[in-house]
């Protein structure tokens, strides 16, 4: 069953500028979304990818009810989000990686208590839930520390904890790992994955870190220039836009380089001491046979193309 459904969602930003020479008001219109259709099922972890200004955050804000679309149908959990019905708002949450929703000068626990009151969570439920989340995120020790004295990673963990205290059904995540170190990024991904798998929370994630998308999202939507370019499984995205496997061979000496030069295949190139071949389908089998015949196994690496390369390729094509 779909819990998010949108049809032909458009959003235009209009800015007025007064021209002092002609004494006329000029209206400048920017089209942020050009008709987005989307269906999301309960428990999905959906990733939005797109360059800056593509319309990802705008779409997220329309889904959460912050902004009103210029036209189109939006239905989230059976509600039109912009009506801002409390029944709807109780079931969603939003985390923005670049902003703080918690009180800057106070310990995180005080902001959590405020969340408890806002969402009408019973004290016993709140205590139980807080304990659960603190254990997973390992933030028990920092609950009494003021937010401004926390590291960025610790702050983001607290933001995530606050947004999940009231057990929302849908969570919108706008670049939650931005600026974080690798360890914090991993901890947050692990937490989100657990919440998604164990509690069936639907997550809608936008991120420029494709490692987030690769690890968390089975399904991705690519937005470019306000339009949906791709909507499907991440694996299929690679198959569609970059079907080639990448074979890398470490070439130890001149003899290896000569052997590499004599390999019969189309897409091969030499990058210093590294021979790179891109191939797929029946050709891949033939090439692999040649490679394994000529080079030692310890010097061969076969991998999928880098997801970042795939996305860059798609953005370049749509520009």
């Amino acid at each position, binding site marked *: 069953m779909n819990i998010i459904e949108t049809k032909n969602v458009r959003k235009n*930003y209009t800015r007025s500028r007064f021209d002092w020479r002609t004494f006329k008001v000029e209206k400048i219109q920017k089209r942020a979304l050009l008709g987005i259709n989307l269906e999301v099922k309960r428990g999905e972890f959906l990733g939005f990818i797109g360059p800056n*200004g593509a319309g990802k*955050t705008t779409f997220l*804000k329309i889904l*959460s*009810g*912050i*902004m*009103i679309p210029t036209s189109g149908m939006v239905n989230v959990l059976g509600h039109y989000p912009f009506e*801002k019905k*409390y*029944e709807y*708002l*109780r079931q*969603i*949450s*939003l985390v*923005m990686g*670049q*902003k703080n*929703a918690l*009180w800057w*000068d*106070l310990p995180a626990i*005080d*902001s959590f*208590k*405020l969340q408890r*009151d*806002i*969402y*009408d969570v019973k004290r016993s439920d709140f205590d139980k839930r807080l304990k659960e989340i603190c254990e997973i995120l390992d933030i028990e020790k920092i609950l009494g520390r*003021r937010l401004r004295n926390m590291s960025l990673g610790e702050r983001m963990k607290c933001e995530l904890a606050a947004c999940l205290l009231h057990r929302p059904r849908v969570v919108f995540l*706008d*670049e939650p790992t931005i600026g974080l170190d690798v360890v914090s990024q991993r901890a947050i991904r692990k937490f989100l994955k657990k919440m998604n798998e164990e509690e069936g929370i639907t997550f809608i994630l*936008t991120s420029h870190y494709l490692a987030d998308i690769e690890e968390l999202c089975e399904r991705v939507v690519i937005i470019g220039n306000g339009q949906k370019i791709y909507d499907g499984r991440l694996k299929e995205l690679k198959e569609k836009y970059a079907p080639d496997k990448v074979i890398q061979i470490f070439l130890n000496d001149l003899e290896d380089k000569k052997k590499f030069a004599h390999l019969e295949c189309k897409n091969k190139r030499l990058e210093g001491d590294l021979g790179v071949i891109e191939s797929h389908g029946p050709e891949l089998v033939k090439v692999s046979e040649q490679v394994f015949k000529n080079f030692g196994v310890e010097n061969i690496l076969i991998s999928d193309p880098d997801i970042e390369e795939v996305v860059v390729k798609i953005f370049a094509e749509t520009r």
Partner: protein
Amino acid sequence: MVKNLGKYISVGYRFMVNALKRDLMIPGKSLVHILVEVVMVAIMLIYFQVIFNNTQSIGGWNYYQTISMYFIARVMFDTDQALTRSGLRMLIKGLVREGDLDFFLIKPMDSMFMVAMHKPQIYKLLTAFANLVLAIYFANKTGIALHVGNYVWFALLIVVGLVLYFCLNLITLIPVFWFIRLQSLKDIIGKLSTAMRYPAAIYPTSMRFVFYFVIPILVITYIPAETLFYPPSILNIGYAIIITGIFFVLTRKLWKIGLIKYNSASS
């Protein structure tokens, strides 16, 4: 909102508790503010003393009545600042321009309440209370016999006046949804409210008309003060309640229109 009154009270209380904790972490800041407040009150008392050395009354009000009204006006300013002014200033300062209003809009509570109440200044409540005590003290020094009825109506009109003051403040700030950078808006009513400190009779008829019916700042202080010193006028009390109701409905309407216009900020 009425349905969830208990929840609103508990969230309001939590805002207060958090603000108190915040202020206690930087006690010097609050102490300096209170000190400035005391100095300002002392200067105003000297100022009124100098004026009354040269005249018997202002607009028909004697020294103690005028001083009492000054403190009533201060009760209004300080209570407004204690509860909602900082929150409303944030609306102009960053909530709309930087998109932080987003966090208020996704909460299952009234966004106007959340924005207004999210940054209380506790020390202002202390000064408001001190000013109330001084207002009553000077009112009793006027020599006018004050009855229970005077106090009851006065208390009601103080509440009505606070609501109206809040509405006037918010109405002047709502254009920020359209024009985004309008920092100068935040003090319009603050500047106008200087006129709230004096008896209505000192203003020419045209200005009195404006201050009663167009920008009804005299309803905020003068009518409560008048009700304290003179027999309560049902006409005045009724008018204060009706005009406050009208402004409240108008404020709610404009707030909702503003939210439709709100475009947040890009990430």
